[in-house]
C-alpha cells in the first residue's frame, strides 16, 4: 500500500499488434476503486518502448505504483518468426542428431511430399561430450571435457551467441550438465548458456533438448528486452519488484524470467485463464470452462475445483499436418484452434465451406475494416447477421464498411449458390462448431460433463459466440465478465508468485522401502522449494506448497496426478492415496485395473501470495433498465430465426438488472449476443450471468 493509503496495481501486456495497460487503484479507507485502460501500438524491435509509451498515455505515475506485472508475446513471436540468435547444442556422445531425428512422426501421413520441421540448430553446431549416466542417475562413464575448449573456439568462430546443454538422464542427476555448464561459463563468460536441468527435470531427451535449445535461442533477445524494460521503469521511478507473467498462470521475478525466458511462451493466454479461475472464486463458481476468443485464435481451458491445470506437454507449430516443436515447461492446459474474429471463410474445391485457420490479421483485417480486406471473416458474418452493430463497430472507433462486406460476400454466395444471409449463418455455425469441438476436448474428452460447468467467455469475440456454444454444449450458465476485452490483463494483477516443478523419479510403489525413500526425496524437494522463495525475501508463512504425486499402473506411460494433502505422507497414507488414484483413473479412462502401481515423479506447486485486489461492488443508482436500452434491430440467430432484438448499452447496466433474450449488449470492446429464451442478470460486480433455458437449439 502506498503512503497515501492507496494501492496501485498495473498490468501491461505486449501483443503482436497492440500493447495494453490496465490500471487499478484502490483506496483502503474509502473503498473507492479506479480502473483505467490504455492501448498503444507495439513497437518492434524495441518492445520495451511501447510499454513506456502506454504508461505515459495512461498518465501513470510510476512512483505511486505498488505492483507492476508484465506479460509479453515477445518469446513466442521470436520463435515463430525465427528471430532468435545463432544457437549451438552440446549433448552426449553419440546423440547429436537427436534434435534432428526428433520423434520421426509424419502427421500428414498420406502425403509423401510432407516436409519434416527443420531443427533450430544445424548439425555442425551440435557437438558431443563423452560420459554417461544410468537411468537412476548414477555414473556409468566419467565426463570428459577435454575437447570443450576447441569446441567453444569453433562455436565462437562460427558466430554462435547462445549455447544449450542437454545430456542423457540429466533429469535424474544434473551433475554432468552442471560440470559442462560451469566450464562453458569459465571459458566463455560472455556467451548465453543454459542447461536442460535448469528448465526441466523430466525424461524424454528429444523434448528436453528442444526445450533447452528454444530457450537458448530466445535468451539474449529476452534478456535485452527485460533489461530495457526494467531500466526504463526504474528511470520512471518504479521501485518495487517487477513481475513477469508466466505460462503457468503465475508471475515470477524478472531475474527468473531472464534466466529461463522460455517459460513466458504462453503468458498471454495463461493470464486469461487465471482471471477466469479468480473470477470463479469471487463468484463461488469453482468449475468453469474458460474461453478466450481473439482475432486469430480461440483458446479454451478447464478450471476444476477452482484450480487451473498445468502440464508440460506443450508444442509450438503442431497441428494435423505438422509435427511442431515441443517445449517441456509448465503451461496451462489449453486447446487452441485457428478460429477468431478475423478467421477467413473459404470454399474448397468440393464446395465445402470452411472457417480459418487463415486469418485476415490486423491488416487488412475483416472486410468491414475497409482496409482492403476482400475475404469474408467471422466478424463480417456477424455484421451481416446484425449481431454486431455497424454503427458501433470496434466501440465506435470505426464505421463498418458494409459495402466492402457485401462485396466480399458476393463471391462466396455465388460459389455456394446460396443467399448472403444463408452463407453468413453457415460461417457462424461452422466457426461455432470448430470451437465446440475444442471445448469438448478440454471437458467431455477428459471425463467432465459440460452440464456441470459454467462457461466464462472473454477476449474480443468471446461474448459474441458464448451463448451459442454454451447451448450446444449443454452448460447451464454463461458468464461474460465486465471488461471482457481486457480480462487477461486483469488476471495478471490477480496472479500469485508461482513455480511449478515437474520431476521424474521412477519407483515401484510396492517394493520394500521404496516409499520411505521416495518420501525422503519429496521432503527434500519441498524444503528446496521453500528455501528458494525465502532466499528471495519472501516470508515463510506466505509460501504455500501443493504436491501432486504422478502415479500409473505398472508398465503404463501416462500418469495421473494425485493431489496429496499437506498432512499426508506416502508411507503412512499409501492406501488412501492409492485409492484416490484408482478412482481418478477410472474417471479419466472408464476402467480400473488390479495391476501394481508405480510412482513416476512429482508435480510441486510453490505459491507465494503477493497481494490481491478486492473488487468493489458497483453502485446501484436505481436507474431503470429502459435507460440502458439503446434501441431495437433485427438480429439473425441462425436456426432460431430472425428476431426483433433489444440492444443494451453495457456501460449503463447496473447490478440486479435482469432481462430476457433475444438481446444484444454492446460495450467498447465486445458485443454480447443473448439468444431467445435466455435470462440475463447483472451481478454485484457488473458481470453478466446468462442462464440458458433452451438446450441445443443453436449451433
Amino acid at each position: 500500500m502506498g503512503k497515501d493509503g492507496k494501492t496501485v496495481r498495473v498490468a501491461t501486456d505486449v501483443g503482436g499488434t497492440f500493447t495494453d495497460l490496465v490500471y487499478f487503484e484502490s483506496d483502503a479507507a474509502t473503498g473507492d476503486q479506479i480502473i483505467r485502460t490504455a492501448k498503444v501500438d507495439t513497437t518492434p524491435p524495441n518492445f520495451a518502448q511501447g510499454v513506456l509509451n502506454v504508461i505515459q498515455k495512461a498518465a501513470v505515475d510510476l512512483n505511486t505504483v505498488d505492483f507492476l506485472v508484465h506479460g509479453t508475446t515477445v518469446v513466442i513471436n521470436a520463435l515463430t518468426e525465427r528471430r532468435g540468435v545463432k544457437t549451438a547444442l552440446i549433448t552426449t556422445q553419440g546423440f547429436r542428431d537427436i534434435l534432428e531425428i526428433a520423434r520421426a512422426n509424419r502427421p500428414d501421413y498420406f502425403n509423401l511430399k510432407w516436409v519434416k520441421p527443420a531443427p533450430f540448430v544445424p548439425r555442425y553446431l551440435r557437438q558431443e561430450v563423452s560420459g554417461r549416466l544410468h537411468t537412476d542417475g548414477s555414473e556409468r562413464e566419467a565426463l570428459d571435457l577435454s575437447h570443450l575448449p576447441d569446441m567453444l573456439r569453433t562455436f565462437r568462430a562460427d558466430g554462435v551467441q547462445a549455447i544449450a546443454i542437454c545430456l542423457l538422464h540429466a533429469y535424474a542427476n544434473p551433475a554432468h550438465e552442471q560440470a559442462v555448464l560451469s566450464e562453458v561459463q569459465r571459458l566463455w563468460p560472455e556467451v548465453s548458456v543454459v542447461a536442460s536441468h535448469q528448465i526441466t527435470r523430466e525424461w524424454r531427451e528429444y523434448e528436453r533438448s528442444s526445450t533447452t535449445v528454444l530457450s537458448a535461442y530466445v535468451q539474449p533477445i529476452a534478456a535485452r528486452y527485460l533489461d530495457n524494460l526494467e531500466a526504463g521503469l526504474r528511470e520512471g521511478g518504479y521501485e518495487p519488484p517487477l513481475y513477469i507473467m508466466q505460462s503457468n498462470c503465475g508471475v515470477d521475478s524478472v531475474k527468473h524470467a531472464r534466466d529461463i525466458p522460455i517459460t513466458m511462451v504462453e503468458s498471454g493466454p495463461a493470464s486469461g485463464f487465471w482471471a477466469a479461475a479468480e473470477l470463479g472464486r469471487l463468484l463461488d463458481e469453482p468449475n468453469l470452462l474458460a474461453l478466450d476468443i481473439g482475432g486469430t485464435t480461440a483458446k479454451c481451458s478447464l478450471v476444476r475445483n477452482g484450480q487451473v491445470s498445468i502440464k508440460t506437454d506443450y508444442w509450438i507449430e503442431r497441428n494435423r499436418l505438422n509435427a511442431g516443436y515441443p517445449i517441456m515447461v509448465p503451461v496451462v492446459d489449453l486447446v487452441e484452434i485457428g478460429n477468431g474474429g478475423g478467421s477467413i471463410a473459404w470454399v474448397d474445391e468440393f464446395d465445402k465451406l470452411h472457417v480459418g485457420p487463415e486469418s485476415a490479421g490486423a491488416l487488412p483485417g475483416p472486410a468491414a475494416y475497409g482496409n482492403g480486406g476482400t475475404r469474408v471473416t467471422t466478424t463480417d458474418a456477424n455484421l451481416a447477421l446484425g449481431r454486431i452493430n455497424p454503427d458501433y463497430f470496434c466501440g465506435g472507433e470505426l464505421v463498418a464498411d458494409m459495402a466492402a462486406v457485401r462485396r466480399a460476400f458476393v463471391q462466396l454466395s455465388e460459389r455456394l449458390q446460396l443467399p448472403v444471409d444463408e452463407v453468413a449463418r453457415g460461417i457462424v455455425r461452422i466457426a461455432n462448431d470448430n470451437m465446440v469441438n475444442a471445448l469438448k476436448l478440454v471437458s467431455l474428452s477428459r471425463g467432465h460433463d459440460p452440464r456441470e460447468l459454467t462457461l466464462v467467455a472473454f477476449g474480443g469475440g468471446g461474448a459474441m459466440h458464448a451463448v451459442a456454444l454454451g447451448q450446444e454444449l449443454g452448460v447451464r450458465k454463461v458468464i461474460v465478465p465486465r471488461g471482457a476485452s481486457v480480462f487477461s490483463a486483469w488476471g495478471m494483477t490477480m496472479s500469485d508468485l508461482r513455480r511449478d516443478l515437474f520431476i521424474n523419479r521412477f519407483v515401484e510403489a510396492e517394493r520394500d522401502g521404496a516409499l520411505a525413500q521416495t518420501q525422503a526425496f519429496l521432503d527434500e524437494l519441498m524444503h528446496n522449494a521453500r528455501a528458494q522463495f525465502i532466499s528471495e525475501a519472501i516470508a515463510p508463512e506466505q509460501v504455500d506448497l501443493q504436491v501432486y504425486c504422478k502415479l500409473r499402473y505398472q508398465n503404463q506411460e501416462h500418469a495421473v496426478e494425485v493431489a496429496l494433502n499437506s498432512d499426508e505422507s506416502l508411507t503412512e497414507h499409501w492406501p488412501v492415496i492409492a485409492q484416490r488414484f484408482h478412482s481418478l483413473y477410472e474417471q479419466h479412462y472408464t476402467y480400473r485395473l488390479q495391476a501394481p502401481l508405480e510412482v513416476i515423479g512429482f508435480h510441486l506447486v510453490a505459491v507465494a501470495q503477493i497481494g490481491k485486489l478486492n473488487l468493489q461492488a458497483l453502485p446501484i443508482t436505481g436507474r431503470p433498465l429502459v435507460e440502458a436500452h439503446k434501441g431495437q434491430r433485427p438480429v439473425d440467430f441462425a436456426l432460431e430465426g430472425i428476431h426483433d432484438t433489444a440492444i443494451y448499452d453495457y456501460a449503463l447496466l447496473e447490478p440486479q438488472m435482469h432481462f430476457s433474450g433475444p438481446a444484444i449488449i454492446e460495450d467498447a470492446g465486445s458485443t454480447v449476443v443473448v439468444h431467445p429464451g435466455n435470462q440475463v442478470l447483472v451481478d454485484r460486480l457488473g458481470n453478466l450471468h446468462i442462464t440458458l433455458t433452451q438446450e441445443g437449439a443453436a449451433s
Partner: protein
Amino acid sequence: MSNLDVFTLDIIQNSLQAIADEMFTAMRKAAMSPIIYEVLDMGTGITDAQGDIASSGAGIPAFVGVLDKAVKQILLQHPAPGEIEEGDVFITNDPHSGGVTHLNDVVLAMPVFAKGRLLAWTANIAHWNDVSGMVPGSLSTEATEIFQEGLRLASVKLISRGQPIRSVLQILRCNTRMPDFMEGDLWAGIAAVRGGATRLQALSEKYGIEVFLAAMRAFMELGEKTSLSALLSLPPGHLQKEERQDDGSVFKVAIQITERELIIDLRDNPDQCAGPTNLSRDGTVVAAQMAFKALTAPQGVTNGGTFRPLRVLTRPGSLFDARPPAAEGFYFENLIRVHDLILRCLAERFPERLPAGNFASVCATIIGGVHPDTGRAFTLVEPEIGGWGAERGRDGNNAVYSGLHGETFNCPVEVCEARYGLYVERMALNDEPGGHGQFRGGRGICIDYRIRADASFLTCGYTRAVIAPWGLEQGLEGTHNYIVVVRQDGARERYAMASSISLDAGDLVQVRTGAGGGYGLPADRDPQAVRDDVKNGYVDVDTARSVYGLPL
C-alpha cells in the same frame, strides 16, 4: 433438404473427425504397451452401419483401411437378427478373416445403436506385444503356418450388451506371455470404442437419425468426388513396372488409368510362400489404397468413398492373396514392397507428383529377455525410421517413419533404457554415402543397443537389405537397411530377416537404415548445397569430389 442442412451435414462430418481423434487420444493415454502409447502402432475409426469407413483418427495410414474390412467381416459372420446388439464389442485379429494384417494387430469394434437401429461402428486396432505362438512376441520368421503365430480371433464377441464374456477373457489371458499388458491394452481399446459410441449417439440424437445418416452418405460421396476429380487431372494410360526383390524373386505391377477408375493389377506375381511374409488380399488392397491416396489427393478427406474409383486385381493363392493356413506374421514387408512398387511405377510416369523411393521397410526390430534391474520379462517391438526420397526442388527428409506409419513416435532413449534394460550407445543419422542427386535422399539412422542380460533374443524383418531404394530422374539409389550383431569377441553377423537370434550381455545390436533415393543428376546439384552437406557431415569430402565434382 433445405439449404441450411448443407452446413448441418458439414458440422456432423467435422464431428465424426473429432470423435475419431478423441478415441485415438483416449486409447493412447490408457494403453499399457510402449508400442501403443509411444510408437502409436494403432488406429481408430468410425464406419457406417455397413462397415464403410466414415472417418479415421490420427495414427497409421496402413490401419485406416483395416477397420472397415474388419467390421464388414463381423457383419458377415453375424447375419441373424439379434446377433449384434447394443453394448456389444467384437474382437478380431485373423488376417484370413477380416483382420487384414497379422495376429498381433487386434481390432476392437463396437456397434452404435440409436432407437434400436444400427447406425455406425466405432473401432480401433493396436499392436499387442504377444498373442502366444511359437516365439515371444509372436513374430517368427520360421513360421510356416498361421497356427504358429498365435491365437486366432475371427469376429469373436467379447462383450455382450455391456457385460464382458468371462470365458473369452479367460481365453485371451491364457494365450499371451504378457497377460498384464494384454489386459491393460484391451481395456484401453474398449474404453476408446465405448467413448466414441457415446459421442456418436449424442450426435445422432441431436440432429436426428436420418440427418446423421445423410451426413455420412454425403461424406462418402465427397470422398469419391475428390478421388474422381484427381483422376481426371491424370492422363489416361497403361503403366507397368517390375522389380527384383532381396530374395531374387520378381514382383510385377500393371496400372491402368482411365477417367473414372484406376486399376492396379497384381495378378502376375509369385505364389504364396511357405514363410510368414504372405499378404491377405485385404492387406494388398490397403497397400494399393495408400498409393492411390498419395497420388490423387493426399490431404483431402479419406473415407469409404475415396477408394470407390480404385480396383485392385489379385490372384488367389499368390503372395498378395494368400489362402489359409499361410503364415502372415511378417506380412508388412511385402505390403510395403507392393506399396513401394506401385509408387515407383507411378513416380516414373509422374515425377512431379511423387518423390524418389524411400528406405521402404518397416524394419521391425524385436529384442526380448529379462530386464536386469526388475527381473521381469520385456519385449522391445519397434518399427525403425529411415531416409526418404528426394523430390523435384527438395532433398528427402532425414529419419522419419516408412509409408506404412504416420503419426508414429520413436521411443526416447531415456524411456528405452529404463523400460527394456538395454543401453542405447548411439542414435544418429546414418552417413553411409548414397542417395546422391541434384536433390539428395534423406539419411537413415544408426541405433546401437548394448544387451545387458544373457539369454536375450533378437528378431528382425528388414527388406531393402540387398536392393537399395530407387532414385528418380537419374538420381542415384539410396543405401541398405540391415542389422549387425557385434559379439563380445568382436565377431560381426549381418541380418535382415531372422528370428530368435541369441544375445548375451555385452553383445551390440547395430540397427542401420538406408538413405532414400536421389532426384536428378548429382552433377546438377548446387555447389553451395554440397559445401553445406560437407560442413554438416551429410556428405564426406571424397564423395563431394567424386560424385558431385566439387573442387575442395
